[in-house]
């Protein structure tokens, strides 16, 4: 029976390769992952860029490099040209016994202040070791914005897995091929599982690919796979229902997009609600999936928490699956 499920999967995969909408659904999470990888570091970056002269005191350059990103130029004209570019960059050049700070004029106030303060600390020869404050670190090494965006992308990919199922079912309906499959030895449950394989495997590959592209190499991949597969169940059920109830691809895709509401609601609830109101989102499997992925991406997840989240995702998805299974079976008869 397992072999036949994979035959169904193989056919769906072959068909999807020839369907522009399916290819788009498969590729778009990876494109978004590249976008996040390219732009998210910029969004997080608090490093100040400083342009300096090659002829400046080597100790001065070395000191500034400890606290800012330094670019060195041969002459003042080059420094000025660099400062005048679109990004935020302050120039520090020697002038007499002191220094001159060059600004484009439209920088954030923080940049100007940082350049001034940094140069003053150099004048006073202050170092980090001389501080009287005690340093405490929570050990978070992951850029928070990038993690949030990647987690949202994972949620969207889960929704897309349902869309792939819906498109595949609509294709079966349009070609009137469900009856033809129903008179072969594969059981209906085998057919349903076989049909689910394309959506779930493509989504899983997209999730792993997206996490890899965005640079979270050190996450617990087993946890990612476990929560990924379990959080897909509900999306797959919705995909089947939409496929059965839709007459064309666009209607099916639009129907599955309705899943965006509970997904977006769950994300917003998790991120914006205070702790005392978090319970209002406990009904949503997407909430638990998002929470689990948040912990995994932050590399602070432990197995008991992940298994609890996974269990709740499976429980709520299974209830929906059991409720709608008769309707799916009828629609595929």
């Amino acid at each position: 029976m397992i072999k036949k499920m994979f035959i169904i999967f193989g056919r769906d995969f072959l068909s999807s390769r020839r369907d522009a909408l399916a290819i788009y659904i498969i590729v778009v999470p990876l494109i978004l992952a590249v976008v996040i990888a390219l732009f998210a570091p910029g969004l997080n970056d608090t490093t100040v860029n400083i342009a300096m002269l090659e002829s400046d005191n080597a100790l001065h350059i070395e000191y500034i490099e400890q606290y800012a990103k330094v670019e060195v130029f041969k002459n003042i004209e080059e420094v000025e040209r660099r400062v005048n570019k679109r990004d935020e960059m302050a120039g520090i050049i020697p002038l007499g016994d002191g220094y001159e700070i060059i600004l484009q004029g439209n920088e954030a106030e923080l940049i100007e202040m940082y350049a001034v303060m940094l140069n003053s600390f150099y004048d006073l020869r202050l170092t980090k070791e001389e501080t009287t404050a005690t340093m405490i670190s929570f050990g978070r090494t992951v850029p928070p914005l990038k993690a949030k965006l990647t987690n949202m992308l994972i949620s969207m990919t889960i929704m897309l897995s349902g869309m792939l199922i819906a498109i595949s079912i609509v294709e079966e309906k349009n070609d009137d091929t469900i009856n033809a499959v129903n008179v072969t030895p594969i059981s209906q449950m085998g057919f349903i599982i076989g049909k689910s394989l394309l959506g779930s495997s493509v989504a899983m590959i997209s999730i792993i690919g997206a996490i890899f592209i965005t640079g979270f190499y050190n996450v617990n991949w087993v946890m990612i796979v476990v929560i990924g597969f379990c959080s897909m169940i509900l999306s797959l059920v919705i995909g089947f229902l939409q496929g059965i109830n839709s007459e064309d691809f666009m209607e099916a895709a639009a129907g599955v997009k309705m899943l965006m509401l509970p997904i977006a609601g769950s994300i917003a609830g998790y991120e914006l609600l205070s702790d005392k109101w978090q319970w209002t989102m406990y009904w949503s499997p997407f909430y638990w999936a998002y929470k689990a992925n948040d912990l995994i991406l932050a590399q602070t997840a432990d197995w008991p928490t992940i298994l609890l989240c996974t269990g709740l995702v499976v429980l709520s998805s299974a209830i929906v699956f059991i409720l709608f299974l008769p309707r799916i079976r009828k629609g595929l008869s």
Partner: protein
Amino acid sequence: MISVKNLSHIYSNNDKLAINDISFEITKGETFGFLGPSGAGKSTTQGILTGLLKLQKGDVQVAGYDMNKVDNKRFNKIGVSFEQSNVYSKLTAKENLEFYSKLFDVPTRDPEELIKLVGLEGKENDRAGSFSKGMKHRLTFARSMINNPELWFLDEPTTGLDPTIAATIKNIINEQKAKGVTTFLTTHNMYIADELCDRVAFIIDGHIKLIDTPKNLKMQYGKKLVDIEYVDGNEVKKETLKLIDDKDKKRMYEIINNYTIQTMHSKEATLEEIFIQVTGRGLI
């Protein structure tokens, strides 16, 4: 091969019985025609026999399997050609047949051989979506033979096909019959049924009105008349003579011996005429 006893079926949204207490048997190697107009209950009966519709009432045995028990292995012995073509548009003709062949647990036929058999040679690698309605129908027909079925369900196998292709399909059905394949043919085309079937059943409003061989039906319901046109001098004359009347028989011999015969036709009743006579209804 098929045994149906007291079969009834009702659709939940309709109080009227779609099938009302029908019984019949089909022996191995027989080609059985199930004839009736649209809505008579042909497709419902075929749906129950193929397992696509759940058996509600009655005893049905198909290819040795009790239809009260779900066992998908029975489909290894069964081939079904639907009236509506059902092939994957995005797959080529060959890919379609290859896909279905992998779903069976029994040795299957070569897809290319089947494609050639139904006259689609050269189209193996064309996507089914680019096929005409007739070509899709032929591919559907080919698919129904992929598992070398012992029992073959054919629903309007020649509908929408041009006469040459229809003749090819009829030849294939006869070849399968020669191999001992049992065929359950659902159609409203009485000419096809007459040519192919060993026995036919007339079904109307969910009831089977009669089951018999086409020959017996013609004998029973035909008029047994002969129309003769012959040349008498410069004049063409026409007479209609009864084959069961001695006086008319003598007259027929006399005409044959003394005149030049232009045309001579037996007034044998067609199955369609018999169907109308028996059921009081047309076939459309």
